[in-house]
Each structure stands twice: as structure tokens, then as C-alpha cells.
């Protein structure tokens, strides 16, 4: 029985010659993400800005949004945003951070509750006070930095320092580009988005290490080939695996995106983007970094002889 093969055997795609194009593209996308981040900025949700989100389902299947918006904005609690999510009667109400500390937030909600009363079911209310929102942002950033540091140390121990640098640059590239994705799409950026970014970091690191592991092995096997050719060979040997794994991950994520419900749709979309960015980054950023940082093609033969007999024949 013949099985499905998405990638033919013995591909010889010159990835490292292509790095003259792909590496600048990756760098450009990252820089653009940073520029957009500062120029436009992501659409921060209440987790980071503070404020209130209320989700209601009105009993009236076709409620008058304009009227609701008008009366909510007349409550004197600042600008109130009203939008539908999914069905016509699922409505999301956003109230900005109220001046006057923690109790002012509660007062604003009482006003909204009073206005809506029995005309709708309250599906969700989230209130984040000014103090907590700052801490949440700080802790998220801290978690990311500590993760990077811990990973760098592990990879440094298991490989060479160039690999550690490469895996961090590659993961940082994924993070920055996913941030850019949030800026461009203007999807709300909240704690769940942060979880999405951290997921893609995990995926990116996993994938980079798999590629690096193969490069390390190829380095041990062949002594006289240039580093660029060695890396090309390693990546081409793994291409079947990379494509199959990407396919299965994307199948899982797309089913989550299509059938997983409104609440996590933006979350999965960011992960889909992140997974693609991670695959791209492992091949087009992590691998060339080894060349740019001057990894020698005999680096693996000097040391780590104790790691078992790697076959020396071609």
C-alpha cells in the first residue's frame, strides 16, 4: 500500500544560499513589528489597561445596538464601547478605567447593571483594577525573560553557545512577529493572548531544538563539507518530518479555530500564525545564525567524544 508523501525524498533545497533573502525578510518583519508596536500599538484589553468588560445576551433576539450604546454613554462613566460577538444578541460592553481608584470601578458596573436590569442575561463580567493591571503586565514580561534565560542555559549546556544564541534569537523573532500580528489585526491583547505568545515560544523552541539536534548530528558525521552545505543537508533530511508535524499541528489548531467557539477564536488564530512563524524561524533564522556567529564545522569533533560513537562514514 502506498502512503501519502507530501515531500519527495532527497530534496536539495539550498536553504543557506537562500538566507541572503530569507534572513533579511525575517529581520525586516521583526523590525516592522517593533516599529508598528511603537507607532500604533496593540489593542490592549482590560487585563493590561484596567477597566471592565461585560458580556450580555439580551432576551430580545434583535436588540437595538445604537439605542443601547446611546443610553450607556449617557451614564457618565466615560466612553462605553458596545459590539456584538457571534450572534446578534450577544453583546460585549467595554467600560474604560474609571478615575478614583478601585471602588469607582464597582460603582460604574452598578450603573450598567441598573440600566440593563432584566432585559438580558449577564454572561460574563470582568473588572480589573488599576493596580492589578500593571502587575499582570509586569509578571507576563518577567515570565518571558526568565523562560528565555533558562532555555539559553540549557541549550548552551547541551550544544554550543552559538546554538543557545540562535534559539533565543529565533524565539524572540517569533515573539516579536506575533506581537506584530496583534498590532496589525488589532485583535484584543489580553492575558490569554500572552498565553498564546508563550505557547508559540514553546513550540518555536521545540522545533528549533529538533533542527539543531539534526545539525549537530550532521556536523559530527561529515567533516570536510562547508557549514552551509552541512546545514542544508540537515534541514533537507528533516523536511519530511517538519512538513508532517506542521500539518498535524495546524489541523488541530484549525479545528479549534473553526469549532472551538468564540471565546478562544482570537487565541487560536494567533497560535496558527505563531506556529507558522516558528517553523519559518527555525529554518530561516535559527540555522543561519550559526553561520553568522561563526560556528566551526569541526566544532562537534573537538569535544563531547564521550557522547557515544557517532558514525564517521558518509
Amino acid at each position, binding site marked *: *500500500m502506498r*502512503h*501519502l*508523501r*507530501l515531500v519527495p*525524498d532527497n530534496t536539495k533545497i539550498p536553504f543557506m544560499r537562500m538566507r541572503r533573502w530569507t534572513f533579511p525578510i525575517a529581520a525586516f518583519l521583526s523590525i516592522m513589528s517593533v516599529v508598528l508596536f511603537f507607532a500604533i500599538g496593540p489593542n490592549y484589553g482590560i487585563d493590561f489597561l484596567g477597566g471592565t468588560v461585560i458580556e450580555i*445576551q439580551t432576551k430580545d433576539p434583535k436588540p437595538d445596538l445604537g439605542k443601547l450604546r446611546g443610553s450607556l454613554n449617557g451614564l457618565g462613566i466615560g466612553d462605553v464601547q458596545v459590539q456584538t460577538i457571534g450572534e446578534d444578541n450577544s453583546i460585549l460592553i467595554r467600560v474604560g478605567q474609571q478615575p478614583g*481608584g*478601585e*471602588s469607582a470601578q*464597582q460603582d460604574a458596573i452598578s450603573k450598567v447593571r441598573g440600566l440593563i436590569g432584566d432585559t438580558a*442575561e*449577564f*454572561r*460574563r463580567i*470582568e*473588572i*480589573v*483594577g488599576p*493596580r*492589578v493591571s500593571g502587575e*499582570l503586565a509586569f509578571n*507576563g514580561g518577567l*515570565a518571558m525573560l*526568565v523562560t528565555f534565560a*533558562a*532555555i539559553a542555559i*540549557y*541549550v548552551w549546556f*547541551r550544544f554550543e553557545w552559538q546554538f543557545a544564541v540562535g534559539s533565543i534569537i529565533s524565539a524572540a523573532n517569533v515573539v516579536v512577529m506575533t506581537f506584530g500580528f496583534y498590532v496589525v489585526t488589532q485583535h484584543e491583547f489580553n*492575558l*490569554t493572548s*500572552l*498565553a498564546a505568545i*508563550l*505557547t508559540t515560544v*514553546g*513550540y518555536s*523552541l*521545540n522545533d528549533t*531544538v529538533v533542527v539543531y*539536534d539534526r545539525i549537530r548530528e550532521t556536523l559530527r558525521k561529515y567533516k570536510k563539507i562547508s557549514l552551509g552545505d552541512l546545514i542544508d543537508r540537515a534541514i533537507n*533530511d528533516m523536511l519530511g*518530518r517538519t512538513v*508532517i508535524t506542521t500539518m*498535524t*499541528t495546524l*489541523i*488541530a489548531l484549525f*479545528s*479549534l479555530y*473553526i*469549532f*472551538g*467557539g*468564540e*471565546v*478562544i477564536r482570537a487565541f*487560536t488564530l494567533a*497560535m496558527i500564525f505563531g506556529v507558522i512563524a516558528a517553523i519559518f524561524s527555525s529554518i530561516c533564522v535559527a540555522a543561519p545564525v550559526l553561520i553568522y556567529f561563526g560556528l566551526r564545522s569541526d566544532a562537534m569533533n573537538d569535544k563531547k567524544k564521550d557522547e557515544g560513537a557517532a558514525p564517521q562514514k558518509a
Partner: protein
Amino acid sequence: MLHFTRWKMIGILAIVLVGLLAAVPNLFSKETVDSWPSWVPKRQMVLGLDLQGGAYLLYEVDKQDYVQRRLRTLVSEIRKAMLQEPRIGYSGLGVQGQGVQLRVRDVSQLDLVRTRLEPLRNPLGNSLLGGTAINEFDLTVGSDGLVQMTYSEAGLTQRIRQIVDQSIEVIARRIDQLGTVEPSITRQGQDRILVEAPGLGDPERLKSLVGQTAQLTFHLVDSSYQTGQTEPQRKPGTIVLPGQDNPNVNYVLDETPLITGEDLTDAQATFDQRSNEPVVSFRLTTGGAQIFGDVTQKNVNRAFAIVLDDKVISAPVIREPILGGSGQISGSFSIQSANDLAILLRAGSLPAKLTIVEERNVGPGLGADSIRAGKIAAIIGTAAVCAFMIATYGVLGWIANIAVIVNVVMIFGIVTLLGATLSLPGIAGVIITVGTAVDSNVLIYERIREEYRSGRSAIASIDAGFHRALGTILDANVTTLIAAVVLFYLGSGPIRGFAVTHAIGVATTMFTAFTFTRLLVAMWVRWRRPTKISL
């Protein structure tokens, strides 16, 4: 790589079985599980508030408010101490920043000042545990007569800790009386309390019960002023407080309360016999009854105010001495508000004001929708991935699918055993694990394929394929595991929810790749003795 001793095989299958069995109770409703015999594992997964609905309320001790209150009490304590015989003359007694200061007129009395004020420093920790006792206040006595009692950093921190502990007890007592919900009340950090009430649709009643300080005090109304005057003058030792029903009416009261909520032994909601309105009746302790009897005897025809959280509920005039030690509080209550006040008075007051800094409520409808959508997505996603794997790898694809499904069920089993909470991001963590778990199988199979193509025999290729791929899987998954563990410890809320299932998933992925998948392939090899590999 393909040889397993009998004991190893039994061990692997036993672990897998335990993992699977632990997940089984989740397939049934709570009622069904409860009816099972007692020796069957019954533990079910704890669903996060985002999945089952409920209220998440994060309270913080209002430090500033507490310090201000405490310093005001300290001022009156110091005043009392100075008035003891022999009297100590002073001036300028008042709150200054984070402390209280005064100037002693006669510098020769400074030693006496020191002995008088020392007990007011209020030792907090007990030195029984070997540590040095921490005092709430630092006392400095300057040779020029300037005396300061200020909060020490350690003293304030320790005090806030105690307040959090006391508050948790009080809140637990209050909620007990409510009887309907079973929220968890936990300390968060140094000065925060988290109240989580799963399944609670409308948290307003809970909030009004938990958040109210409920400090009850009785004060004599200063009779030299007309009650109800809008802008009363005040003299030292008095306070001005607004009325509860009409905030424009102010009352001038003696600052020192006659009795406080601590003097109460019982409080019940009842109806007033004459007006038939809801009221709260209370009984005083013996000591409280004595004081109250004395004061009412001396102050017939004066008004006294019943104050709850700095608002005057009512200010009845004393018609006759109240000697029996019981009375009632009236003041336009509804049946529920009278009932709630009685609960609050019975459970005691919070030692400090608590403010809500974060609140998240999810109605049960939304959570149920999310679970339903998550299930559908999981079934479709799994089916699609399985089909793809079978199309790519045939028989070995089936083996990979069994391994991945066992892997996922084990994640749920371990989450159940650990009592960890499954939230929506947690489900995402499971799904990304499916991705990496499939990857570990793909790595193994692609490796086997390569070895086979380079001319080895079928069985030697399988052996070498596992051997090579497992090193890669180890490195890749340890890296991911590090990330997940860091996130678990540093993250909060959704990040933590994600990190839990992701970390467990990475661990089970490594376990299945190294043992279970290998065992399945080994059994298949022993059964079919393949001489060719079609991959």
C-alpha cells in the same frame, strides 16, 4: 531498543492503566460517580471558572485606610496613658505621616514617658517560636522632648499579614451562614484575599457579605449640638459622621465608642413588635451589658448613635436605662438586609477595609457553551489528525494514534489526580501537546524510514530509528518543559492554566515516546516479524 523485560512491560502498562483509570470518573455526572462503591476512585477534574461559571473576587487590604484608623486609635491610647497619675504634660499630639508624634513639656519625665508608651508598641509575633518579637510601632524619644511612635516596615507587614488571616476567618464564618455556596478563600501574596465561588451565577449578594467591614459601634451623641445640623462644628474628642439613609444629615458623636461589635454575643433578624418592620435584635456580653447599663442609666434623655462602618444607622433617645443587655437596631431594613446585617454581626467585623482589585464573573451559560465547543473541536481535530497519520504511515500510523490518544487521556487523568484546575487555556495546552506528541511519533518514524532507506534490515531500522529519535525528543521536550515550568511559577490566571496542562503534556509525551509507543511497536514487530517497512 525493542526488547522489554516482563517486569518493565508490566510496569509501563500499569502506569498507563492508572493514568487512564484516573480519567474515567470525568466521563460520568457527579451524581453517578457519588453512587459508586467507596473503593472506586471518584475524583473528578476541577473545572476553571471560565468553564463552569462562577465568581472570582480578588480583595486587597486597604492599607492606607487601616493605618489612618489605627493611628487615630493610637492617639487616643496615648492621650489616656498621659493622663494617668502622675500626669505628663504634652502638646501637639497628632498623626504625622505613618506615625504619631507629641512634644513632652518637662524633659525630666522622658523616662516615665518611655515606660508608659512601651506597652502601646503592641508586640505582634510571639518570641515563643524563637524569633525576636516584632513590634507594630517603633518608639523614639528625643532628648528635646519630641516623642514619635511610627510604623516600622516589618511591623506593618506583619500586621497586614495578621489582618489577612483574621479576615479569611471572618469571611469564612460569614459565608458559612449563607450556606448555599462553597467558595474557596485563600491568601494571595502579602495583602490579598482571593474568594472563588464556582457555579455562582450572581455574585452581588456574596460581594455585599464579603466586602462589608461591618464595624458596629455605639456612641453617645454630643448633646451640645443640634442633631441633624448640616455643618456642625466639632471639638477635640468628637467625630462627625453622616447618616446612612440621608448622607446630608450629620451627627456629632463622642469619638470613643461605648461598646463595639465585639461586645455582642448574638444577633438575629426579627420584626419589631409595634411597627412590624424588620429589625436586628442583639444580645450583649456580660461586660458589655454592664457598661451599656451604666451609660444608659447616667444619660437618660440623651441620644446615642448606632454606627455601622462610619455611617449612623439610627440615633434613638435613651428613654430609660437599658439593663437587660439586649436591644434592637431599627433603621429602614428590608427582610434581606436585616438578615445580612445579623449574619455580619454574628460573624464579626473585618479588621480592615477590603477593596476589590480584580473581579471576574462567568455565567454558567457561557462556560457550558465553551465546553461544548471545545469538545466538538477536540473530536474533529483528533479525527482529522488520526486520518492524516494513517494516510501517511499506515499500520504505524494506527500505533501513533493509539499512543497520542492514550497520552491525552493520561493528561486528563493526571490533572484529575493532582487536583489541578482545567481552564480554557488549559484545553489549548492539551491541543498544543497533541501537536508535539504527534511530532515525537513523526520523528521516530521518519528516522526509521531513513535508516531503512540507507540499507538496514527492517528490524534493525526500527531499533536504530528509536535510538536516534529519542535523543532529539528528549532535548526538544526538556526545552519545552523548562518553559512550561517557568510559566507555571511566574504566570498567573490563564497563563498558569495553560502551563499546567502543557507541562503535564510534555511529561506524558516523553513517557509515551520512550516507553508506550516503543512497547506497542515492539509488540507489533514480535507479532508480524516484518521484513519490509512500508513508510
